């Protein structure tokens, strides 16, 4: 079985790799590139801990082959902060106790990042539907919703002052 050359952009940087076609995107990120932000939870596309952005859409990177992402643009949780400055969602999760063990957090952050990019003013219901593919076993989701609302206020404030 031939290895395949792939080329993609990850957090703004061009990456080239030669991979077995069966390599899942999550393994490319974690084991090949050392980007261990996205987590492997269930590895059956249920839990959402491996969620990353691929070409402007949230996907579960445990159910995408790296070869499928070739030519595409990937953003992981490592690409969310602006240098030392946390993204308003990251600040919101810290501020509102949107995590306890933190295992689901990278997936929650990347999912809610895309949710707010697509819809800057979601209702509470839309937030809950938006994160329905991400499982958190600690928080009961209450504080995650609060964290997203916190980020919405920050982002809205930023936009208004810019």
């Amino acid at each position, binding site marked *: *079985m*031939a290895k*395949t050359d792939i080329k993609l952009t990850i957090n703004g940087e061009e990456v080239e790799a030669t991979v*077995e*076609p*069966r390599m*899942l995107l999550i393994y490319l990120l974690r084991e090949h590139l050392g980007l261990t932000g996205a987590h492997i939870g269930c*590895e*059956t*596309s*249920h839990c*959402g801990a491996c*969620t990353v952005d691929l070409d402007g*859409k*949230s*996907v*579960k990177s*445990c*159910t*995408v*082959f790296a*070869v*499928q992402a070739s030519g595409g643009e990937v953003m992981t949780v490592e690409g969310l902060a602006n240098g030392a400055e946390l993204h308003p969602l990251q600040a919101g999760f810290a501020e509102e106790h949107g995590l306890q063990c933190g295992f689901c957090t990278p997936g929650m952050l990347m*999912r809610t990042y895309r949710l707010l990019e697509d819809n800057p003013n979601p209702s509470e219901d839309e937030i809950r*539907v*938006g994160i*329905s*593919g991400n499982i958190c076993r600690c928080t009961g989701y209450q504080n995650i919703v609060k964290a997203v609302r916190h980020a919405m206020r920050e982002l809205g404030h930023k936009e208004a002052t810019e």
Partner: protein
Amino acid sequence: MIPANFDYHRPASVDEAVGLIEQYGDDGAILAGGHSLIPMMKLRFATPGHLIDLKALDELRGIEDTGADIRIGAMTTQAELRASAVAAEACPILAETVDVIADPQVRNMGTLGGNVANGDPGNDMPAVMMALGAIYVLRGPGGERETPANGFYKGIFDTERAANELLVAIRVPKPPAGHGYAYKKLKRKVGDYATAAAAVILALEGGACSHAAIALTNVGPTALNAGDAAKSLIGTSVDGEAQARAAELAMEICDPVSDMHGPVEYRRNMAGVMTYRAIAEALGRAKGG
């Protein structure tokens, strides 16, 4: 959870894709969104030697109003279908169904073509396509042919599609203007397959039912067309008695298995309940409610 290895192909045209499917035969598998196939490959239930990824085939994407039909490219994702104004206007049951399939991330990858073509009785769209009287457009080495959704499903993962054919589009005839519709799905959690689900399309003329179609998900080896149940509604006012009779007739054709979704009796009963509720909701919508 590492799949067996394979060679990866990303054809640049439909003809090239069909050529590869022909070339590799049983050792090849078609990759659309991958959210049914990749899990099967991780479990090594599927071990294709060649994956033919349709990702680059933009001609298989998009939703078009062709007058009598809506034509949906097979590689259109569930999320794209959900966002389509054309689909929402002519055929709102499609969006209602998308919303109960898997979760947002999976709907970004999962395609309508994959959902209807792979023959998994747990998939939601086959029953909806049966209720809509959809037509599948298949392309093989000899050209294109059309085959109806009703009759396409022969058994678990067994369909009318020949091994050397590719599903390229789905033609959905527009239901009558002002029709009522509903897709009711009982599931244990977000992302689950149905314990039982029912798709209903109906239309009224002068207060009496002039058109009805009912199809069921995951209560048999394939999606099931509940033709007798639908026929029993025709000419009635679709009152409570007619709804209950149709639900009974729908239950009679169910042949579910006992599994983690529940025992046979429960699932058959739930198919009746979903049918009953879907008819009631479709009726309300047909009346403009």
